[in-house]
């Protein structure tokens, strides 16, 4: 089995074994009472003959000792923390690299139902970045664009860049995106930020912008026959964690009635984790109505509206109707 966290002695022993020829390895292992790796599966099958129920009280002892060594809820190998600001800036850099990689005819390919070609999609993003700067500016907060539909609000930028060449559109977008990053750093990070029909703070907007750039990166990749962009685990863990925190709000935003119950989300994969989400008036003592197990990245794609919830592989233990309602609501804050 893979062994990334070996003790020094164990590492040394394995290195010594590796230095031996196959026959010598087998001899060395048998000499010390272990079994050669190539025969270990056959050896393990012998354990079937000795199966015996353990004392009932052992279960609690075992689980308690395990939780003492690694607290529940914490992934085995959590990615390094990543702030929304860092995530947004890394995603801007990724998106700029994607645009730089496009061929001339890629820009005319259809990338989005509403935004049209790749070029028009990037022009839409120029509009989004300009709106974001206005929303974020702590000294001159703009009401322009607030409560305006996401698509309609960026129409002026798309019209303005209609005759521009792709390089100009890409440069305008990148300049506007870095202006967002710059203005986001200024002022009180907890200040309320109004955008479209939502109210959040600076981090909320940066997380949503990260989701949007990732989503449009997928659109462009699909349109131009490129591999889907994969964000690093740090970003995905931050985004999935924020998504989990927003689940009650998403259900409320959609007007979905919920029970006073807790939902456990077990998000699998390198960016995964275990999240206990209280709904309604539930608290930490409220029983779980549902445990939903699914891949962290796939769930984020659902939240970004780049994977239909119907296509999401998941396992639900508990209230199946609640599982459907939750999954139907996770994309509540996505704005194409």
């Amino acid at each position: 089995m893979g062994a990334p966290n070996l003790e020094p002695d164990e590492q040394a022993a394995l290195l010594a074994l590796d230095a031996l020829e196959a026959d010598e390895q087998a001899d060395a292992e048998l000499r010390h009472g272990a079994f050669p790796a190539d025969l270990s599966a056959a050896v393990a099958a012998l354990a079937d003959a000795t199966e015996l129920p353990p004392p009932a009280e052992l279960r609690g002892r075992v689980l308690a000792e395990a939780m003492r060594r690694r607290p529940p809820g914490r992934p085995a190998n959590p990615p390094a923390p990543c702030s929304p600001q860092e995530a947004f800036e890394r995603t801007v850099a990724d998106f700029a690299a994607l645009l730089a990689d496009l061929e001339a005819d890629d820009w005319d390919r259809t990338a989005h139902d509403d935004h049209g070609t790749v070029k028009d999609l990037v022009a839409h993003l120029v509009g989004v970045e300009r709106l974001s700067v206005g929303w974020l500016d702590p000294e001159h907060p703009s009401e322009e664009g607030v409560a305006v539909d996401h698509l309609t609000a960026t129409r002026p930028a798309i019209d303005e860049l209609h005759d521009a060449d792709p390089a100009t559109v890409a440069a305008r977008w990148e300049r506007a995106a870095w202006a967002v990053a710059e203005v986001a750093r200024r002022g009180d990070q907890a200040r309320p930020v109004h955008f479209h029909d939502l109210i959040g703070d600076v981090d909320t907007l940066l997380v949503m912008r990260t989701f949007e750039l990732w989503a449009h990166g997928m659109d462009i990749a699909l349109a131009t026959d490129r591999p889907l962009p994969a964000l690093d685990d740090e970003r995905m863990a931050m985004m999935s964690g924020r998504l989990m925190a927003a689940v009650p709000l998403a259900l409320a935003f959609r007007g979905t009635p919920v029970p006073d119950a807790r939902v456990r989300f077990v998000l699998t994969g390198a960016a995964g984790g275990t999240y206990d989400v209280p709904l309604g008036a539930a608290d930490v003592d409220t029983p779980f109505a549902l445990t939903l197990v699914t891949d962290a990245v796939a769930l984020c794609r659902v939240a970004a509206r780049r994977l239909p919830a119907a296509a999401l592989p998941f396992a639900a233990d508990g209230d199946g109707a609640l599982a459907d309602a939750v999954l139907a609501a996770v994309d509540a804050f996505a704005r194409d």
Partner: protein
Amino acid sequence: MVTNRRARRTVRAVPNGAEPSDASLLARVLAGDETGLAAVYDRYAGLVYGLARRVTRDAYLAQDITQEVFAYFWELPDRVDLTKGTLRSYLAVVAHRRAVDEVRRSERRSRVETTTFTIEVTEGPELEVVDAAACEWRRQHIADVLAKLPEEQRRAVSLAYYEGQTYVQVARTLGIPEGTAKSRLRLALGRLRVLLGDELGAVT
């Protein structure tokens, strides 16, 4: 994006009550879901405890080993690679190694205290009464497979696996040269691998 976005809120229903796969349980453990560990325990505690008890012949040591195996699994679940073998095989290998370590420690203590060294020879795996039908089937299946080995190979395997003996000790117990003990063990395990065939998942 060119997709049918109108279909995005159609959520497929997933039937409840299906037994989660080992891969699903491992993913849950990796994510820090303690109920995933509880499910793994419920599925494999009998395997780990029974093996530890058989090798150590000590119920209390077997409980300690069982605790250690599952706590270790929870602490370092990324050591399990299901592309190379099953979770069942992995836990059995870890349990066996821990149990053999305990036997060795006990032997050292015994030598120091009494300067005598005796090992009880058995003819095969202990036939414990296990209530679960699946356990009974597996136990009988392995017993049937072991019965197909030549007697001298079966004894060598029993001593090495169920008693935790090295091949040097097997040779001493059976009164045969070390080289003969070693070759019997390898022949027996190779034959077992053939007899068990596709049932096996490799574990390294």
